[in-house]
């Protein structure tokens, strides 16, 4: 097996970090929803707001960031693309 290319190393590192963020948001923050409900946010209890809207916007953010970073990474490594 050949050594992993730097493109693949960077891709997997980015994926791992974003995945970790996803796990913390989905299972970490949600775990404390009861405690977060003590705080109020635009009239919502914060725990409820986060589960109903906040976390969805974070998900969108993760996907946008990934798609941008990968586009740049693709551009950096354009020379490595071999024609099919």
């Amino acid at each position, binding site marked *: 097996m050949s050594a992993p290319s730097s493109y693949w190393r960077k891709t997997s590192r980015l994926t791992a970090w974003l995945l970790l963020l996803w796990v913390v948001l989905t299972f970490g923050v949600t775990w404390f929803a009861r405690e977060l409900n003590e705080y109020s946010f635009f009239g919502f209890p914060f725990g409820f707001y986060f589960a109903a809207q906040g976390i969805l916007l974070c998900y969108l953010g993760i996907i946008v960031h990934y798609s941008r970073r990968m586009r740049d990474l693709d551009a950096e490594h354009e020379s490595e693309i071999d024609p*099919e």
Partner: protein
Amino acid sequence: MLSSLTRLQRYYLYYTGIFLLFVVVLAALERAGMPARWVGYAFLVFTVSMYATIGVFSRTTDVSEYYVAGRRVPAFFNGMATGADWMSAASFMGLAGTLYLQGFQGLAYVIGWTGGFVLVALLLAPYLRRFGQYTIPDFLSARYGGNTIRLIAVFAAILASFVYVVAQIYGVGVITSRFVSLQFEVGVFVGLAGILVCSFLGGMRAVTWTQVAQYLILIVAYITPVAILSYNVTGVPVPQMVYGQVLSEVSKLEEGLFDSPTELEVRERYRERADQYAQKIMQLPHSLTQERERLSIQINELKSSDVQMREIVLLERQRRELPQDPAQARERWEKEMYEALERSKPPLRHAEAFPGDSEAERNAQRINFLALIFCLTIGTAALPHVLMRYYTTPTVAQARQSVFWSLLFIIILYVTAPAYAVFAKFEVLSNLAGIPIAKLPGWVAAWAKVGLVSIEDINGDGIMQFAELSLNPDVIVLATPEIAGMPYVVSGLVAAGALAAALSTADGLLLTITSALSHDVYYRIFRPQSSTQFRLVIAKSLLLVVAVLAATVAAQKPGTILSMVAWAFSIAGSAFFPALVLGIFWARATRAGAIAGMLVGLSLTVYYILRLEFGGYSWLGFADGPLNPWFHLQSTSAGVFGILAGFVTNIAVSLMTRPSPQAAEFLERIRRPGGREEGA
């Protein structure tokens, strides 16, 4: 402005304009006196003929067009089509209702069904697109080699998709029977026709373009009633922003329910009823004979006196409907007991997370909440009909972007659903609870006739207490226009939206099933030498057979259909997710590991569901009664065990076997850069 749009965007803009115009014209006609029934028909005929037109124009005889829409679908439109593909009758009708009934606990569905798309974006979509074949079994077979894994994947894809498609067709039956008063069975086959006109001639290409059209209708239909309701209640027509205030109103109203004397009395009555059933169950079989004797004595007494015949007939029917044997009596009475027990509990506080009387109970709720999220996310990231859509974009970069668009279009509905629930609860608590039963609005009776709403004046005071009202979750979205007193045209719009949600998902699922059968089984395994034309003939005939089969099953009205949808997630998640993700990110994963992992994960999930739901059926071999749930997890979260077991088995067996050299080549191919290449 208009000229900066692409040709496709312009088409869909015109299409949306025509649809809105159609709604406005109908509203005017209704005001001029058109009967409600005609409004329903107009919506049904108009929307289905729009879909049919698109379906006929997109007909194709090209294999790549048929399976992956020629890989020419731009990210934006693929996102919209995925949104419609993804959001089924369950999302459209069931989600808001579940949130209404369960409050915060229902948000597990919102988080799970959206969080899964992060996994799709990061772990699957770009790699599937770079691989560039037709189906999910294709991918697994190329990565691990061999036809065994292809067959297992085909089996799992069909199992998960078939239960799901039956639920959609069932949903179509419910909608058509309520809104255009067709007979349920007729409605099912009308729905079938609606599904077939989209997918039969044009495969994925036609399905994609009708799904875009269906998305537009379903989102307009979902948001309109709740925006009007929000405007009526708060003066701002953006429900997603302002329902926080309404939520605190609801919380205040809820506090009043906890110690209102009449509510307490009603709950006490239900508790008594539950106790009575518990006693009767304990005294089986004696209590059943006693019950029958009691009725017989009463009937004889009445017969010897000269009361009206009608009363005797009523009692005789009661006696006839008594359970046949103790086993049936136990089953029926247990159901009644749980129902009464459920109603005797104090209401939930809508915004409270993980409610419970003790710390242990709260923790069990919390664990179930997170487990359900886990299953739904993984299941979302493994449902073949959604993953298949990412084969259809022109490039890898567009596949990544298209996940963003998918999630955005899905989120528009999912941030609205909790608002729906809160506004509906506000209406019910402030306008419905506590009014005399004789003065209930007309929609209550209309929906009670269909069996989705029931009211029982258990304490006999002639006033409806909150605890005396029971709503089926599906009714919330469909009845909101009537609850808020909107014209019938809004109800028709909602019905058209629900129909679009059910049809679009059913199309995607049917296509997955037929491509698994025609492409993976017939072409790849049995007749690799068959001509492309013949392959399409096979695909189209199979589509017809599977569709009729699904409609026949749906016409039987299988009762547990909505929980079956939740099982589909667990099944798909445990079968596909470990094999796909390890296959992409872990070079050591071997064929034996993947096969073992898929089999173990799938069997464990199916076993857990069967044991929990159908324990006590001796023909399944589980005569010793239902299993005690492991870690208090319900069967809807069965996938937790299956997915984890799938990962562990896959890794363990892979480490014991040697990877094949083709796998390294395959990985090199899908891991290399190049977002803009056109792909194979």
